[in-house]
């Protein structure tokens, strides 16, 4: 077997060449080739990490914006609700005032009317007494007697009082 022919000087030469060539391979790998590979791999890892970070930042930003939006919506809703409530209250107050005024006016008018009616009745009653007295005087005159004005007035008063009672 040629591999076991250790007397062959080429075997020793082969070992020497192997050491030189393998050493050169190791040197080239450590000095040039592998740092390049490592550099690219690290660069890629860094880039991916940076992208992930950016995505994370964007997400938190979006979350914050969403929260702000939600808050603003809630605030606007509350404001609108309070505005509605205030308007409602105001309107109610106004309506109450107006109805109160109206009631007062109506009551006043009613009072006035009642007063007018009362005076009218009093006038009418006064007129009625006069009419009664005149009627009585003329009736008595028809009967052929001279009516005593005082007696007639008294009689009419009595009759009216009895009617009113």
């Amino acid at each position, binding site marked *: 077997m040629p591999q*076991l022919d250790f007397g062959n000087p080429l*075997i020793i030469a082969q070992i020497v060449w192997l050491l030189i060539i*393998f050493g050169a391979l190791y040197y080239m790998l450590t000095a040039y080739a592998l740092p390049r590979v490592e550099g690219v791999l690290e660069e890629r890892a860094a880039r991916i990490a940076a992208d992930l970070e950016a995505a994370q930042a964007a997400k938190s930003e979006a979350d914050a914006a969403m929260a702000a939006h939600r808050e603003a919506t809630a605030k606007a809703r509350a404001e609108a609700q309070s505005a509605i409530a205030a308007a409602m209250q105001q309107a109610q107050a106004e309506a109450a005032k107006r109805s109160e005024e109206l009631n007062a006016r109506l009551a006043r008018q009613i009072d006035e009317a009642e007063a007018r009616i009362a005076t009218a009745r009093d006038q009418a009653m006064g007129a009625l007494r006069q009419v009664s007295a005149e009627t009585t005087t003329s009736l008595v005159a028809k009967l052929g007697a001279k009516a005593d004005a005082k007696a007639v007035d008294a009689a009419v008063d009595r009759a009216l009082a009895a009617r009113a009672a």
Partner: protein
Amino acid sequence: MAAEGKTIDALGQFELKTVLGPIGEAVGFTQSSAHMLLAVGIIIGTIMIGMSRRAVVPGRLQSLTESLYEFIADLVGNQVGQHEGRRFVPFVFALFTFILVGNLLGLLPYAFTFTSHIAVTFTLAFIVFVLITVVAFALHGKKFFGYFFPEGAPIWLAPIIIPVEVISYLSRPVSLAIRLFANMTAGHVLLKVFATFVVLLGGLGAVGPFIAILPLATNVAIVGFEILVALLQAYVFAILTSIYLHDAVHLH
């Protein structure tokens, strides 16, 4: 040199011959060394061309280079430790690629398989052996000798345990070297024997070529198998080196 004089010459392929005329003769530069140089050129060339664009999204050659690097980095990282293993990655990478390309180159027609020479495999294994011993001494000093006698073992077992451990430690480079050498040599002898059968049977008159198809088909299958062996043996060499480095760094 297929079948000179109708005999099977399976070992002639391993003969060392100087190349480059008188210069090669003067410095003992053989076809074996030429193939080593070619392997180194292929390794460095692949990496340099593959990584020349430094693309974030890699092309084919860059992907190949990167996955090869990550494969070795993971292998060493898992065995030795992610942090302690980092500085051994280039060495294991050099070993793995050198053996792998050497094995695969040897499968090409007319090529020489330098990993089928025990002088080569033993030199590589011896480099590993020196490295693990130096690393173990540098990291642990005298405590390294504790490796040969595990703590807590009964003292009367020392005469048995210590020789066993020492022999097993010393046999590491031998087993590394012989495993690779034997696998490569056996594969190439087998290929050569069946190839010779093809030639010998092919010369047997009218039916010869038809019978010769059998060893030819066998050879095709063996080539496929040898590609597997080439990958596997490079892997075995690299992982055993990593395991030895683990022992050197952590002492068990």
